[in-house]
């Protein structure tokens, strides 16, 4: 992109590596500076499956109980608000991704459009944001695994079984990724396919039931028992359910025909999960009423399934919950590793972090930087806090992606030639940025403090370690 050679180095004396440039539009390769070809191997289905697979764990299998407790049936509106914000960000992210189809996603666009300080802050805090998200998915997985044990009648006594299972699985996923899992992506496609099947059957039956087709009476309830504010603060909480569409952009370098597939995968996966989330809340609150639903906690949806389908229904949804949370956790570990790579390639973190192990061919340092901190956070076990901090850090990035689009469009560099252009971009990106930052205001104080502290620490690290680094291709 930029032709000038970067001169600045970080404290270890490293300067940014040249990136691979994509060949003409619609092609299946990128080419490095030395002329080696990089095969793009993820198609549209793979891209959607990354997006849906990352997102679907939380919205359906964790939040219905929590959200209904805070906003009543209006939690469905909270999920809809989340979807609108996610779409407002997904469109600008799609345009930037088609203009710069490179691994790194949001970090890359922000660092190129807004400079290396915002880039470094976003790059480092999105690494940690993904770590928080992964921990959140793993703790949720633990809840489902514990519920399954209870269902099977295995006594768990007073053991901290949720945390133990979450830790164990966190270790297992990290190890699997370290030592190479062939066809992991294909497996992910099947898992997502199976999940969608279970959910469509469940929601289809539940939806018909809620509308009174099967003759059972559902209790009518005040739509917004806790007021309008609760709808927005719940939207802030459940926004974690939409962290994932931008993960598609972190694999942009591996996606075939990025000009077409990236926007379709990002916007498509948001639409798919949004419909499922809103339907889930509708069905769940119709079945039980939000008060009882809230009492069931994180595995509330299992009780809903039991009400419709007896023990078989409960078991199917438990299985779905296990699959969904594992798939979300795994996709997030992979995204974390890619986020670390993108930042360390630009010498904002030590370049040691992007080493690849020749024997296994895996980025062992970056994967450890994903899996290690996750295990620490899993030990904390605070689901809502983990979810909100993850959302905080992602929302900052989403807001800045919108700002990056405004900056790019105002001052379009010669190489800027996106295949997809956002219509009415000022409006979309402007509202997207305001909504992203605005949602942060509705979070718990504790989450805001932790999120802000992480960003400050990231800025401090940049000033200390990489102040002189000049990135290639910055506006």
């Amino acid at each position, binding site marked *: 992109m930029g032709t000038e050679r970067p001169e600045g180095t970080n404290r270890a004396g490293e300067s940014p*590596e040249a*990136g*691979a440039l994509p060949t003409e539009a619609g092609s*299946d*390769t*990128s080419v*490095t500076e*030395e*002329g*080696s*070809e*990089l*095969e793009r*191997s993820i198609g549209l289905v793979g891209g959607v499956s990354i997006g849906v697979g990352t997102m679907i764990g939380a919205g359906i299998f964790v939040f219905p109980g929590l959200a209904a407790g805070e906003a009543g049936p209006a939690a469905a509106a909270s999920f809809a608000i989340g979807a609108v914000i996610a779409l407002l960000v997904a469109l600008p992210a799609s345009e930037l991704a088609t203009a710069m189809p*490179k*691994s790194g996603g949001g970090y890359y666009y922000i660092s190129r459009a807004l400079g290396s300080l915002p880039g470094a802050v976003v790059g480092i805090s999105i690494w940690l944001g993904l770590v928080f998200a992964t921990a959140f998915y793993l703790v949720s997985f633990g809840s489902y695994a514990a519920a399954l044990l209870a269902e099977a009648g295995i006594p768990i006594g007073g053991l901290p079984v949720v945390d133990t299972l979450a830790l164990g699985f966190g270790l297992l996923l990290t190890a699997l*990724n370290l030592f*190479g*899992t*062939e*066809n*992991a*992506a294909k497996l992910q496609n099947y898992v997502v396919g199976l999940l969608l099947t279970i959910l469509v059957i469940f929601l289809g039956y539940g939806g018909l039931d809620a509308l009174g087709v099967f003759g059972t009476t559902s209790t009518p309830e005040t739509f917004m028992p806790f007021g309008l504010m609760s709808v927005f603060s719940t939207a802030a909480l459940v926004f974690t359910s939409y962290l994932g569409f931008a993960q598609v952009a972190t*694999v942009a*370098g*591996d996606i075939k025909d990025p000009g077409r597939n990236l926007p379709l995968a990002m916007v498509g996966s948001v639409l798919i999960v949004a419909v499922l989330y809103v339907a889930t809340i509708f069905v769940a609150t119709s079945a039980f009423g939000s008060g009882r639903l809230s009492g069931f906690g994180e595995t509330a949806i299992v009780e809903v399934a039991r009400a419709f389908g007896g023990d078989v229904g409960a078991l199917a949804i438990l299985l779905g919950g296990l699959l969904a949370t594992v798939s979300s956790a795994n996709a997030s570990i*992979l995204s974390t*590793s*890619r986020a670390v*790579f993108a930042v360390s*390639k630009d010498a904002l973190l030590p370049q040691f972090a*992007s*080493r*690849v192990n*020749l024997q*296994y*061919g*895996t*980025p062992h340092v970056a*994967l450890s930087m994903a899996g290690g901190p996750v295990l620490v956070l899993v030990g904390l076990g605070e689901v809502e806090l983990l979810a909100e901090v993850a959302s905080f850090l992602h929302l900052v990035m989403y807001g800045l992606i919108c700002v990056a689009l405004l900056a790019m469009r105002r001052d379009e560099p010669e190489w800027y030639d996106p295949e997809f252009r956002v219509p009415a971009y000022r409006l979309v990106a402007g509202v997207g940025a305001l909504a992203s930052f605005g949602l942060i205001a509705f979070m718990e104080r504790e989450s805001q403090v932790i999120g802000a502290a992480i960003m400050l620490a990231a800025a401090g690290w940049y000033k200390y370690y990489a102040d002189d680094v000049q990135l290639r291709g910055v506006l």
Partner: protein
Amino acid sequence: MSENEPTPAEIMAEASFAIREPPKVLVPVEVLEGESVSASLVEFLAPAEVVLLGYHVLPEQTPTEQASMQFEDRARTAIDDIAAAFREEGREVETRVAFTHDRDATVDRVAAETDATAVLLPNPVGAVEDVVVPIRGAIDVDRLADLVATLLAGREGSVTLWGIDTGGEFDAAAAVERARETLAERGLATDRVRTEITETDSAVRAVVDRSGEFDVIVMGEGGPGLLSSLFGDPAERVAEGAVAPVLVVRD
């Protein structure tokens, strides 16, 4: 190459050989896994145009760009070493290096981009004398004849056209006859071409079982089918089981 042997260019210029178009062989090598191309195979392939593809397969969790940053120089050095061996045989070769998650997709793409006549599936081989061409389905006879005639032109050795009849509608005897005629048209001496026909249930197993009798196997892709999608292409299954390298003539 000793003094009295003709160079590939001289062979091509000889009037008795009427090659329709010079064949191009794609040689994929998994360079960072220490794969190479043996000296005898280099010598055998040298009359054709050669495209050397050094590739490295990565697990899906590793971005190809990340691996290329670290391994690109090593891969380029390794592929240049192999290219040097071809250049010593008097042949210019095109080299390419690719990082991929999917070996077959990369090989197919490069084969299509370079319009290769055939793709090599490497296996160890000694001096090449006897080439076998198992014919068990539709095959591009023109491409096959260009390839075989070019490779055998400047050397000793025979080619066995082996029709394999698996009991379907495919007329193996007619296909073998057509291939024999086309080879003769290309100028390959008829006494160097043998033909035979076998009836069998499994073409792949028959070829693998007899692969020890020959030095190089030349066969067609075989196209898609139920068996192919379950077990891989017939040619790939032959290459896995056989003791000889396989040249797959592209459709």
